[in-house]
C-alpha cells in the first residue's frame, strides 16, 4: 500500500523529506556526541586535578562554548526549515486544477469546479483523480467536525475546519495510486476514513473527468434494472444521488459512477460484489457509527441493488 | 545531637501586614490566578470580535444607566475600604468593624444593582458568541463580588463576636486588599461590556 512519507512522488512531499533528512542527520550526530560525552564522563579515570577551581573554570568555558554551538545549530535549522517553508507556498500556476476537499463523518468529497461553467461541476467521493505534473490547488473545508487531509506520498496535512476555508496544494510527478487518510481524530470511524489519489497522465485525467460529467448509464441487464427500481423506490434516495435519475440527495456519497471506483466506504472495502453486498446489508457492523443504516432488503433484492450499483461505471 | 543556637526568634512579632506576611502571598496568589482568567476572557472577547463584521452582531447596544451608577458607587466604596484597611493596620477594632460594616452594606447594594444590570443587557447568553462572552465576563465578575461580600460579612461577624487578635487585623487588611482587586477589575469589565459595543 502506498502511504509513506519516506517515498515521495511530488514536489511538496519531496521538499519535506529532504528537510527531514537534514534534520535527521543533524540530530543523529548530536545524539551520538551527547551519549559519547556521557559515556566518557562515566568511564574515565578519576584524577585529583578534577577538583581544582581551574578545572571548574575550564568546564564553564566548555559549557558556554557548547551552548553557543547548540544555539548556532538551532538557528541554522530554523533557517533551513524556513527556506523549505517558503518553497511550499501555493504556486501561481497558469492553469492549476482547482479542487474543493470537503470532509464528512467519515468520507471525503472532492469537487472539481469549472470556473467558466458551474454546471460542469464534478463530485468524486473518496477518490481524487489528478493529472501528473500539474499543481492541484485545493480549498479545504468541512461539513461537520475537524478532519485532516493527508497523502503522505504527495503532501503533508491540512486540517478541514468547519466555518473556515483554507487553500493548499500538491502535485504528483509520477503516475500511480496513493492512499490518503484522515489525520485528525473525528469520531468512531476516524480509523476508516481513507481515500485514494489516482495520479494519471493529463489525457487520461481529461477523459476521466469527461466521463464523470456524464449521467449514469441505463441498466442493461434484468437484475440491474430491478436494482435501479428498488434503489429509487426504497430508502437509498433519501441520502444518495445518481445523476440522470430522480435520486438527488446529497447526504451520502454521489453514486453516479460508483461502479468505476476502486473502493467503497471511504477506502475501507474493495469495490467488489460481496463487500458491497455486506455493506448494503449492514454498514454499521463494518464501520462503527456510520450514517448508512442497515437495510431491510431480501437478499435477492440486495443482489439486484448491488448489480445495479456495479453497473454504474 | 548537639546544636549551636545561632539565631533567637523568641522576640520576633507574631504577625505582619502586607508582603511580609504569608496571608498576603496566598491572597495575591489567587488574585493572580483570577486576574489571568479575566485577562484571557477579555482576550477571547476581542478574538471573537475579529470574527464578525458587526459588533454587537445584530443586537442593540446595552443600556448603561444602572451599570454606570453601580460603577460610581463601587468607586466611592474605595474610601471606606481604605479607612477599614487603615483602621486594621492601626489595630483600631471599633474603626475596623464600623468601616467593614459600611463596606458590606455597599457590597450588598452593588450586588442588587448588578442584578439589575443583567436585566439591562442587550442579549441572552445563547443568542450568539458575543452574548456568550458578555454574560460569562459579567458573571465571572459577579461571582467575585458576591464571594467577597459574603467574606466581608463573615469577617464582620467574626470580629464582632470574638476578640480581635493581631491575626484578625491582618485578615481585615487583606480583605480590603481583595476588595481593591475587585474594584480594579470592575472598571475594564464595565468598559468592555457596556461601552465597547458602542465603540467597536
Amino acid at each position: 500500500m502506498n502511504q509513506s512519507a519516506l517515498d515521495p512522488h511530488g514536489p511538496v512531499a519531496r521538499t519535506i523529506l529532504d528537510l527531514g533528512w537534514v534534520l535527521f542527520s543533524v540530530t543523529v550526530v548530536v545524539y551520538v556526541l551527547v551519549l559519547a560525552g556521557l559515556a566518557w564522563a562515566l568511564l574515565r579515570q578519576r584524577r585529583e586535578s578534577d577538583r581544582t577551581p581551574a578545572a571548574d573554570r575550564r568546564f564553564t568555558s566548555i559549557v558556554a562554548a557548547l551552548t553557543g554551538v547548540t544555539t548556532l545549530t538551532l538557528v541554522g535549522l530554523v533557517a533551513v526549515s524556513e527556506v523549505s517553508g517558503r518553497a511550499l507556498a501555493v504556486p501561481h500556476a497558469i492553469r492549476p486544477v482547482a479542487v474543493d476537499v470537503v470532509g464528512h463523518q467519515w468520507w471525503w468529497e472532492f469537487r472539481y469546479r469549472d470556473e467558466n461553467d458551474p454546471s460542469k461541476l464534478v463530485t468524486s467521493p473518496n477518490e481524487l483523480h489528478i493529472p501528473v505534473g500539474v499543481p492541484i490547488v485545493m480549498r479545504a473545508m468541512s461539513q461537520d467536525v475537524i478532519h485532516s487531509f493527508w497523502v503522505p506520498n504527495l503532501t503533508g496535512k491540512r486540517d478541514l475546519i468547519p466555518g473556515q476555508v483554507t487553500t493548499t496544494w500538491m502535485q504528483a510527478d509520477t503516475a500511480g495510486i496513493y492512499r490518503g487518510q484522515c489525520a485528525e481524530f473525528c469520531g468512531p470511524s476516524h480509523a476508516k476514513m481513507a481515500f485514494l489519489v489516482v495520479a494519471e497522465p493529463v489525457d487520461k485525467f481529461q477523459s476521466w473527468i469527461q466521463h464523470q460529467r456524464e449521467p449514469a448509464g441505463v441498466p442493461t441487464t434484468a437484475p440491474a434494472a430491478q436494482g435501479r427500481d428498488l434503489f429509487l423506490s426504497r430508502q437509498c434516495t433519501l441520502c444518495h444521488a445518481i445523476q440522470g435519475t430522480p435520486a438527488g440527495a446529497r447526504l451520502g456519497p454521489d453514486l453516479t459512477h460508483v461502479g468505476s471506483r476502486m473502493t467503497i466506504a471511504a477506502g475501507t472495502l474493495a469495490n467488489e460484489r460481496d463487500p458491497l453486498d455486506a455493506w448494503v446489508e449492514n454498514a454499521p457492523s463494518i464501520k462503527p457509527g456510520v450514517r448508512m443504516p442497515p437495510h431491510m432488503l431480501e437478499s435477492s433484492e440486495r443482489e439486484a441493488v448491488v448489480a445495479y450499483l456495479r453497473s454504474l461505471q | 545531637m548537639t546544636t549551636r543556637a545561632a539565631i533567637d526568634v523568641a522576640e520576633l512579632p507574631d504577625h505582619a501586614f502586607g508582603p511580609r506576611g504569608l496571608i498576603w502571598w496566598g491572597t495575591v496568589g489567587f488574585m493572580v490566578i483570577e486576574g489571568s482568567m479575566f485577562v484571557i476572557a477579555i482576550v477571547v472577547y476581542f478574538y471573537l470580535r475579529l470574527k464578525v463584521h458587526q459588533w454587537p452582531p445584530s443586537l442593540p447596544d446595552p443600556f448603561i444607566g444602572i451599570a454606570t451608577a453601580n460603577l460610581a458607587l463601587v468607586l466611592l466604596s474605595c474610601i471606606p475600604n481604605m479607612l477599614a484597611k487603615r483602621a486594621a493596620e492601626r489595630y483600631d477594632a471599633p474603626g475596623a468593624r464600623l468601616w467593614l460594616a459600611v463596606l458590606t452594606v455597599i457590597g450588598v447594594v452593588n450586588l442588587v444593582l448588578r442584578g439589575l444590570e443583567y436585566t439591562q443587557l442587550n442579549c441572552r447568553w445563547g443568542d450568539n458568541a458575543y452574548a456568550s462572552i458578555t454574560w460569562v465576563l459579567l458573571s465571572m465578575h459577579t461571582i467575585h463580588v458576591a464571594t467577597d461580600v459574603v467574606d466581608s460579612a463573615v469577617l464582620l461577624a467574626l470580629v464582632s463576636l470574638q476578640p480581635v487578635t493581631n491575626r484578625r487585623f491582618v485578615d481585615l487588611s487583606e480583605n480590603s486588599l481583595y476588595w481593591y482587586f475587585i474594584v480594579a477589575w470592575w472598571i475594564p469589565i464595565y468598559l468592555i461590556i457596556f461601552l465597547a459595543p458602542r465603540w467597536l
Partner: protein
Amino acid sequence: MTDEALHRQLADTWYNPAGLVGRLSIVDHKVIARRYIVTAFTFFSIAGVLAALMRLQLAFPDNHFLTADQYNQFFTVHGTAMMFLFAVPVMEAMGVYLVPIMIGTRAIAFPRLNAYSYYVYLFGGVMLFTALFVNSGPDVGWFSYVPLAGPDFGPGKRPDFWAQLITFTEVAGLAVAVELAATILKTRAPGMTVSRIPLFVWAMLVMAFMVIFAMPSVVLSSTFLLLDRLVGTQFYNPAEGGDALLWQHLFWFFGHPEVYIIFVPALGMVSSIIATFTGRPIFGYPAMVSSLVATGFIGFGLWVHHMFATGLPQLGLTYFTAASMIISIPSGVQIFCWIVSLWRGQPRYATPLLFVLGFVAIFVLGGLTGVTLASTPFDLQVHDTYYVVAHFHYVLLGGAVFPLIGGVYFWFPKMTGRMLDERLGKWNFWIFFIGFNTTFFPQHLLGLHGMPRRVYTYPASSGWGTLNLISTAGAMLLAMGGLLLLFNVLRSVRRGAVAPADPWGGEGLEWTVPSPPPAYNFLHVPVVEGRSGNWDRRGNEAPPVVTGIKADCREVLITTVTAAEADHKTIYPDPSIWPFLCSVVTSAFFIGSIFTPWALPVAIPPLAITLIGWFWPKRSDRSTQCDLANNRLEPLRGEA
C-alpha cells in the same frame, strides 16, 4: 529543654489525629503528600492497563479485541488520566512532601487548603474512572477538540465528564501551586538565600508559577465547553460568531506549558540524584537555575506548534518554529551541566542514578525529535502520526517518569523508613528501559510510514503489522517493569531494610531529619550556611539552629523573600474535618453541574457553610488559644 522533652512537646503540638474522622482531618503535608502519591500511582496503573489493552488491539491489523467505541474511550481516558491525574499531581505531591523538609520548615503553607486539594483531586479521579467503567468515558481525545466534543457531535455526557475532570484537577493543582509558591518564598530556613535554594526547590517554584499562569486558560476553555453543551452558549459555534480554533488556542496555551509543568520538577529530581550519587554539588548552579526559569518563560511562547496544520499564516508559524527550537537550549545547558557533574564526580551506580542515566539517554532523543517537530514543514508530515506518539512518550515517560521512579527509589527510605530492594531495582530499571525503547522506538518509523494516531485499527495491506507487534511486545515488557516496581514497593514497605536518616549520603536538608520525618519535621529549625544543607554540616559537631520558636504552638518562622532573614512567626491551623466536607460539597457540585445548571444555586449554601466552618476559629483549637495567649488587645464585649 532537653531534646527528648522538646520532641515530646512538638509531637504533641503537631499531632495527627487518629480514627476515621481524625484521618480525614489530618493536615500534615507528609501524610497528604503520601496519599497524593499513592493515589496518583494507582491512577497511573489503571491508565497503564488501558494502554496495554490498546497495544493488544493494535498488535495485529483488523483486530477485533476492542471495539472502536472502547478504543476511543480508552485512549482518551489514558491520555487524560496520565496528564491530569498522574503526571501533574504526582510531581506536585513530591513537592508537597519534600519542599518543607528541603527548606527547613515545619509544615507547608495553608495546610488545610492542601488537604482540601487532595480530596478534590481524589474525587475527580474516581469520577473519571467510574464514568469509564459505566461506558460514559470521554471518547473525544484528551484534547477534546470542538466541534467533535461540542453539543452537536458529542451526544450524551461523555465529554462533560472530561470537562469536569479538568475543573477538579485544576482546582487541586492551582491550590497546591499557591501553597508551594508561598512556602518556598516565605518559610525558608534563615540563611537559605535565593542563591542557596536547592535546585529541586527551584524547579518546584518554577512549576508552581507555570501552573498559576497556564491553568486558568484551560479552566476557562473547559467551562466554555460545558456551557456550550449544557446551556447553549455559542463560544465554539462558527454559525453564531464562535470559532473552533478558539478552543485550540486556549487549550494549547495551557497544554504546552503543561508539558513543562510535568517535566521541570523531574529536572529538579535529576539534579538532586546526580549530586548525591556523584558526591559533589551540581556543576553550574547559576546556569541550572536560569535554565529552569528560562524554560518556564519560553514554555508559554510556543503553543501554536500544535496547530501547524490548521493553515495559519506562514509568518506567524516561523516565530513559533523558532521559539519551539529555542526552548531546547536551556534543556541543553542542563544536560551539559549534568554530564560535567558526572565527569568531575565519583558516580555510584545505585538504582536512582541508573534511572537518571536512562533518562538522559531517552530524553535527549525525545528532545531531538522535538526539534524536528518544531520545523513547520516537517511537522506537516508527521503531525498526528505515531512519530508524535513516540516523541512525547520519549519526553514524558523518559523525561519525567524515569526521573520520578529514580526519585521514588531515592526518597522512598525518607518517606517510609525502609529501603527499596536494590537488586530488584536494577532489574526494574533494565526491564523498564528495554521495554520502553522496544515499545516506542518503532513508533517513530510507523509514523514516517504513514500511520496516523488515534486509529483503533489498520488494514493488513498497510504493512504496519510487524512494527506494531514489536511495539506491543515492548509494552508487555514495560508492564512487567511496572509490576516489578509495585512488588518491590509492597515488599519493602513491610520487610525492607530499615533506613537511617541519611542512607545515601545525600546533599539536601531532607537527609538531616529522621526517616520517616516526625510530624514537625525539624526538632531544631536549622540555620542554612550553604547550598548543600546536609554536606555543609559535615565535620560540624554543633550545626547552627534557630531557637525561640514556641514548641507548644504550631508556630512557624516566616523569613524574607530573597535574603531569608528571620522576619516574624505565624501560627498554622490545627487538623480539621471541614476541608474534607468542603471538598465533598465541591465535588457534588462539579458532578451535578454535568447534568443541570441548577447545581450551582443548590451548591452555594452548603459550600458557604463548609467554608465558614473551615475558617471560623474553634475555641478548642490550639491555634486559637495560642493566638489569644499571644495578644489580647481588646476585651470581649461584656467582659471587664
